[in-house]
């Protein structure tokens, strides 16, 4: 799989989870995310979809306005 294909597969997985209203457990703390990684891309994607890191830093939660 090319990186673009990998990201598409990831995005599809995330979109399905978004439709279910899932919250996301952060397996790696945000301060250990590597520049240019898929993980960085995933976090930015979910932030654009209205998610924010929980106060304890362990989850990505949908912010209700």
């Amino acid at each position, binding site marked *: 799989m090319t990186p673009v294909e990998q990201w598409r597969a990831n995005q599809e997985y995330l979109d399905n989870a978004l439709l279910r209203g899932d919250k996301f457990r952060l397996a790696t703390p945000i*301060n250990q*995310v590597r*520049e240019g990684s*898929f993980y960085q891309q995933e976090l930015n994607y979910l*932030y654009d979809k209205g998610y924010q890191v929980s106060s304890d*830093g362990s989850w990505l939660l949908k912010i209700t306005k």
Partner: protein
Amino acid sequence: MKSIQIDAFLKAHGFLLVKNEVSDSFGDYYTVFSNGVIKLRFIKDKSTKAVDVGSALCNNEVWYDLSLVKNMLYCDDQLNVALTFEQYQEFLVANIDRLNSLFNYDSYKTTIEKLKELQNQRTKQMFPWFKPPRD
């Protein structure tokens, strides 16, 4: 530098292979070497290849991106710049003695504190939207 050469370089500097794990998915892997002072982790995670460093004196699995050590040594404030795998290896080869000094018994605690601070600064640069928890 090719992986076979970096293996030879590490062996010549007293490193031993500690762990070698290969995943079925995306060809991911991680390989850990240690010389008793430093441990080095070579990673391929999906499309990302990188090198992490940790203290072999701490009995834990805490790792720091080697690019942050580069930022620290060169006093570079631009922390959200990805290194290529070749750049990681070049830095490692050129600075192996400095790395040993940074992680020796007298220095490793100070080094780790600085790296933690750089991690937090990098997070602010990478994720301007992130609101860190308040103490």
